[in-house]
């Protein structure tokens, strides 16, 4: 579903992402982890077409992101860590807008259900300025899920959510993966990564330092056997 080969992004003399190659199959949840400044957000932004890679290819649902951008983007959703909403559209109108943009035929039916699921029904006529940080995040998630994306890219999706919201979001991510979506989840919450992700991609200074399931990673580094994910992460990224 998501295929990345040789992804490199440079800014002048700085290499933010260096020759990353990986794939995410339908139903799989890939955890993207790394220390601050490792290049996680740059990688995710490249995968969504927000920034163009300097070198490398990205294919989403068999569409090349560079040459067939609109088709590739039609199948994916990106939920950033800082929700970007339009100040002048209400909660309802955000979903109406996204529905039309992605051609969601049943948006009128789906939108109220999503709002209910994310506990935003009472706020459906509110502008973003009237929402709390967590509610804004929930709206961004609702917008991302409305068109049933086949590739779901989440950058710190739990930021600002309350415990109930976190629990629901965890269930939502797992449900989407069960329904066949390929999910990439970037988070510093390692227990969340451990719980939800089927595979891990650990990056440091833009480079892949580990890729695979936890047992596969430990198999390549026997010294990490028996350690917690936190210790494994710290060892890999030290």
């Amino acid at each position: 579903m998501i295929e990345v080969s040789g992804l490199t992004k440079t800014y002048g003399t700085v290499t933010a992402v260096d020759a990353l190659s990986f794939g995410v199959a339908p139903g799989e949840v890939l955890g993207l982890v790394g220390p601050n400044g490792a290049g996680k957000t740059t990688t995710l932004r490249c995968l969504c077409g927000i920034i163009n890679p300097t070198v490398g290819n990205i294919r989403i649902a068999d569409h090349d992101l560079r040459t067939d951008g609109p088709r590739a983007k039609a199948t994916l959703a990106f939920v950033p860590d800082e929700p970007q909403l339009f100040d002048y559209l209400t909660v309802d109108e955000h979903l109406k807008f996204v529905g039309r943009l992605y051609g969601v035929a049943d948006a009128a039916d789906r939108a109220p259900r999503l709002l209910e699921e994310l506990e935003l029904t009472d706020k459906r006529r509110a502008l973003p300025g009237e929402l709390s940080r967590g509610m804004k995040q929930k709206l961004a998630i609702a917008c991302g899920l409305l068109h049933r994306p086949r590739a779901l890219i989440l950058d710190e999706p739990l930021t600002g959510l309350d415990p109930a919201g976190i629990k629901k979001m965890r269930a939502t991510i797992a449900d989407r993966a069960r329904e066949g979506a390929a999910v990439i989840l970037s988070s510093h919450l390692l227990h969340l990564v451990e719980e939800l992700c089927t595979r891990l991609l650990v990056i440091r200074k833009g480079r892949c330092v580990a890729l695979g399931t936890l047992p596969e990673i430990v198999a390549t580094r026997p010294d990490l056997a028996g350690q917690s994910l936190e210790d494994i992460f710290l060892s890999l990224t030290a």
Partner: protein
Amino acid sequence: MTGTAGALAFLIAHTTRNRIARQLGRLKSPRYAIAAIVGLLYFWLVFARPGAVGRNPGTVGTSPVLGTVGGIGFAITVLVWWLRGGVTGALAFQPAEVQLLFPAPVSRRTLIGYKVIRSQLLLLLSGLIWTLLTRRWGVTLSAPLRFATIWGFFSVLSLHRLGTALVMTQPLTGGRRAALYAGRALAAAAAFGLLAGVGPVVLRLRTLGFEEGFRALGAALAAPPAAWALAPFRLMLAPLYAPSLAAWVPAFAIVLGVILLHLVWVLSLNVAFEEVAATASADMAKRISAFRERRAGGAAVIRPGKAVRSWLPLAPLGQPAVAIVWKNTVALIRTGILRAALMVVLVLVAMSGVMMRAADNGGPATAIPFLILAGMAFVLGPRMVRNDLRQDLLSLASIKTYPLSGAMVVLAEMASPTLVLSVFQFAMLAMAYVMLPAAYRVVVDLPSTLAIGLVLPFAILAINAASVGVQNAVALLFPTWVRLGADSGGIEAIGQTLVVTIGSMLVLLLSLVLPVGAAVTIATVLRPTVGGIGVAVGAAVGVIALGIEVGFLVGGLGALFERTDPTSIG
């Protein structure tokens, strides 16, 4: 200085020093340096160059009319504060001050004292600007006296507003309740005095005529009871129109005395203002942020709680790009620009109606307001109506994930302001034609009228598309010029606006050279043989040429949009 006072003095001194250092440091960047140079040049040309003084120096500075007019404005402002309230903004602190100073062991009196000193920085700067402005208006006082006078007036105004806000802070207790009632009673008495003095003259204005009415109004304001009501306000402005230094010194001494009295007043009010101040501070922070965002290139920001159900429908399925046009038009509706435009049109219709009732049916003048508005909408409209990429620059990361090509996004972003401006301008031109008395309408044969009528809407659309396209091109090509940064301000912001305005006007004029040239040539060649239709054919060719240019612009901007890294936009 030690303890709390020392910490607050440190805060004021260091924040001021760091702010100035930051602004000077920014000048190392060419865009800020150029903007600052252009801004300074503009300021010098308008206010400071030799000969920039008003044509009749002395006529304003020594005229008691200034005292009367200024006094009325001052009086109305203060009376409204006392009678209507709504002055909690005077208690606003900066968010960091609320967070760090309110829970700190700082007394209320010290906090108010800090606020008074802090506000002096702004008052001194305002005094400097107004000193320059009043030079241009021909006030004859020397610059230092003018500066001192204006600073004194602003200080009284600022302290009085702070005092009023403190007196009105809820819950009202014994002494403050009495002070509020006394203040309101005085304000009501002053308002009554003003109305009682001026009201009868205003009612007779129609019969008295302009000159006689103006004289009668002046006499009424100079006599009791209006004169009594205005006296304290005139006193505060008296130094500004003092004819000599000897007259200025005692007048200014009175102002200084009033400032001292106000200081004692605000520092002696021990009011639990923290809650009101925290709310006012949050409101102020939002307003400042909204203002900066707008100045920095964004659209007007909507106040929370002001959302109205949009009357603009959006079909759930269809061309996806239409969703962007819809979104941007909803933004325009919600930011109130359309409502403001409608109000202007209603005023114009009323003005035009009044003119039509004149003896000669108003003549061609009845159409002029509409033509002026249409012209202004052509020149200023694309700068003012910015519900396009300029508004969405900060949401670029989100917009780049949409399943649309770059060219389609750019076209959709440009569509809303182009359509709205075109409809408005066409309506204004149609109104001008309708309002024009039949005797003044140019008679053209029917085929020519039809031909011109068919071409005109497309011509308007093409010109607006080109103009909006140029503005969006500037936004995408030079995002840092369109958006210098939310914390930029002052001289560099003025300079930046000038550079962008002049630059985009030049590009627009250049883009019109070829289409207008083609249109004029064809019209000149065809008109002798086919009359008005020749003009229409020429205009049509011009419109097509401009349309092709816009097409290239959209294609180029689309490619640029796809290459643009949102992180490069401040």
